[in-house]
């Protein structure tokens, strides 16, 4: 071949080859670049993961440190600094939650097993201090009646001259102090001391035996009688602000609260049955009176039984009677009555409580009073004989849902009989006294209660309607007694 052709061919080939390699090189370079970029990305990702892992490790270390610290605290309890974190209402994780607790000076510790000597119950009495509680009962009261109409405080034929408990506006019913402690293995002692603006009262102060055999128990001192259903409850435990009409008419707002002794007997039967007898001084100013007799002049007996229907339904029913000598000025103006009284009571309570969130209660009592004696006119000194057979009834129902409760009550006097015989002639005092009540309660906790109550009150027997509205607050601090049924 000619050298030129060879040269040209070579040139062509080589140039072609050259061009190819350049292109290739560029491609390779681009590819390498891409790969490198990818690698950089990967490295960056890895770095991020590493950082994350470092963070987690740091967090875990912190946690370990905290746990260690906690263990140390658990081993040797120390006062934890207050105010470590004061973010109230701040929702937080467990650490913050505990911090929050710490700020309230709650310390977590694992105590060694307690020896019996170490066990001191703070909410139950200790050796040196009795359990002390205070409940505050205050209200706002308003009515369409004038002050003087209100202070007449009478139910003609039943009651005269007993002042109304509340005045229009703000009322502080009481701050009630309660004390409780076991005396020794044989006695428990309770005292209830309401402090009002008028001074200090001794509402209750009594002992209860704890070691009598065979289901017997003796109570003595001054106590609320076991008569009836509502009588033994303190006002702050009532389902309405005020007592129902039959209690107000026959016993007064404070009920039968007397010095005396009570013997109760709980036999070991298949059904809960309790029997009780009381000998009382008889100082209730409406039913008896301190001057009616020279010594013990009132007696009470009661029998109650209870049945369960399934686990949610409970029925409690019973009968009570109290009788004794009476001397009182609360029947008619300018008079004094002396004679004998006997008061009967039939009670029935039904409770449905399927859960803590829901309950329904119906409670009813019928009271009948027989009274006979002499009515002395304090102005003319004339003496008339007086016989009274009168009765009263109330029914109340409450429905609780969560922290709310609604209630309704109907109370009435002269339901079956209203006999007021003055020296043989029957006196008619007019229409039946009655009331309709509704209430709405909010109970933030078991230690606080806010209640709004409305009374449609026709108990004055004078066609003068009494519309009452009450807003009540009850607060309990300190030791809080267990609730009876």
């Amino acid at each position, binding site marked *: 071949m000619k050298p030129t052709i060879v040269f040209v061919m070579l040139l062509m080939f080589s140039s072609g080859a050259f061009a190819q390699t350049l292109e290739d090189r560029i491609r390779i370079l681009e590819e390498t670049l891409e790969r490198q970029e990818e690698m950089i990305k990967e490295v960056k990702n890895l770095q991020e993961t590493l950082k994350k892992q470092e963070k987690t490790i740091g967090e875990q270390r912190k946690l370990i440190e905290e746990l260690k610290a906690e263990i140390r605290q658990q081993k040797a309890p120390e006062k934890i600094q207050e105010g470590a974190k004061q973010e109230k*209402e*701040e*929702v*937080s*994780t*467990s650490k913050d*939650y505990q911090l929050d607790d710490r700020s309230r*000076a*709650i*310390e*977590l*510790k*694992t*105590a*060694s*097993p307690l020896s*019996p000597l170490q*066990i001191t*119950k*703070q*909410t*139950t009495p200790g050796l040196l201090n009795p359990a002390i509680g205070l409940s505050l009962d205050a209200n706002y009261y308003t009515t369409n009646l004038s002050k003087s109409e209100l202070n007449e405080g009478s139910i003609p034929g039943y009651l005269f001259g007993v002042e109304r408990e509340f005045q229009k506006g703000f009322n502080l019913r009481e701050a009630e102090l309660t004390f409780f402690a*076991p005396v020794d*293995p044989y006695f*428990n002692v309770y005292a209830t001391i309401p402090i009002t603006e008028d001074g200090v009262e001794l509402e209750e102060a009594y002992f209860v035996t*704890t*070691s*009598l*055999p*065979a*289901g017997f*128990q003796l109570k003595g001192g001054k106590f609320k009688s076991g008569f009836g259903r509502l009588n033994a409850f303190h006002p702050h435990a009532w389902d309405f602000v005020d007592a129902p009409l039959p209690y107000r008419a026959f016993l007064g707002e404070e009920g039968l609260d007397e010095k005396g002794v009570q013997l109760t*007997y*709980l*036999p*070991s*039967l298949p059904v*809960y049955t*309790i*029997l009780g*007898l009381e000998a009382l001084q008889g100082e209730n100013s409406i039913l008896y009176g301190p001057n009616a007799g020279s010594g013990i002049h009132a*007696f009470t*007996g009661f029998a109650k039984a*209870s*049945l369960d229907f399934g*686990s949610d339904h409970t029925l*409690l029913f019973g009968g009570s*009677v109290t009788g004794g000598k009476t001397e009182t000025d609360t029947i008619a103006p300018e008079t004094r009555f002396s004679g004998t009284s*006997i008061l009967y009571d039939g009670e029935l309570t039904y409770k449905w409580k399927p*859960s*803590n*969130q829901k*309950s329904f209660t119906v409670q009813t009592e019928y009271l009948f009073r027989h009274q006979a004696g002499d009515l002395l006119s304090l102005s003319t000194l004339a003496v008339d004989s007086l016989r009274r057979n009168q009765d009263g009834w109330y029914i109340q129902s409450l429905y609780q849902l969560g922290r709310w409760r609604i209630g309704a009550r109907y109370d009435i006097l002269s339901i079956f009989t209203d006999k007021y015989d003055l020296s043989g002639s029957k006196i008619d005092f007019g229409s039946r006294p009655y009331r309709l009540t509704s209430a709405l309660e909010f109970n933030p*906790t*078991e230690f606080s209660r806010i209640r709004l109550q409305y009374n449609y009150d026709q108990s004055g027997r004078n066609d003068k309607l009494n519309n009452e509205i009450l807003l009540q607050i009850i607060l309990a601090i300190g030791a*809080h*007694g*267990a*609730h*009876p049924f």
Partner: protein
Amino acid sequence: MKMLKKICLWFLCVFFFATPAFAKFNIAATLPWIGSIANEIGQDKVRVTSFVKPNQDPHFVAAKPSMILDVRKADILMYNGMDLEIGYLPVLVESSKNPKIQPGNPGNFDCSKFIDPIEVPTSVDRSMGDVHPQGNPHYQLSPKNILRVAEGIEGILSKADPENAGFYKKNFSSFRERLEEKQREWSAIPLRGKTFVAYHKFFEYLALESGFEIVGYIEPKPGIPPSASYVEKLVDMIKRVEPHAILSLSYYPQKEVKFLSEKTRVKSIIVPHDVGETEKVKDWFSLMDEVLKSLE
């Protein structure tokens, strides 16, 4: 006065009718799980009545006359203690007129005396909610403590009924063997390191023993139900900490739990809390089985 005579007669009649039964040891237990353990130790030598319903909130039990009657007939009264029953037990004890179970007597058996309490506050007031001054009272899911309680129950039964002491001791050692065997089974359940949000401070003993963690509570303070705004805040918290599950108990309102579960897509579990609550929970062992299974 006629009436009074009648009542006196009634008294006498009922007194002669009421002859106590001595055949078996009568045990009144407040909570069903206590009754269950008493049954394990006492078996056919005891008759156990427990008066709190298994679906009931043990903090809010209302005293019923029938409970007074149960305590009246009891030779031994067994209770959780640590003030869990403070709202009703004192009135049952006094009204029962039964000297055997009065505080200070051997028949008054406080199970918490045998346990290692946790969360004992150094100072407490009611603004903190329902904080128990003697520590967290919910120790029924703690095998370590329950073993001690069972031993305590064996002790009281052997002391009160020495003739059958051997029987009770044998029952306790088989209880312990069964517990040890079960604990191997339970420890195989992978709970260590898991986190939960709980309604109430109910699982703290179990968390301590099983190695899981309760990182938050639906109740802002023990015994205080959450407000709507608090629940909103809980949503953020749960989203942040991503717990394994939200633990609730059957007696708490399910509304908040459901809402939180839906909002955060964290599953909610209603954990059985006492013997008899469901058909599967027949005794304390099956209670533990069901609880641990539900947490898995």
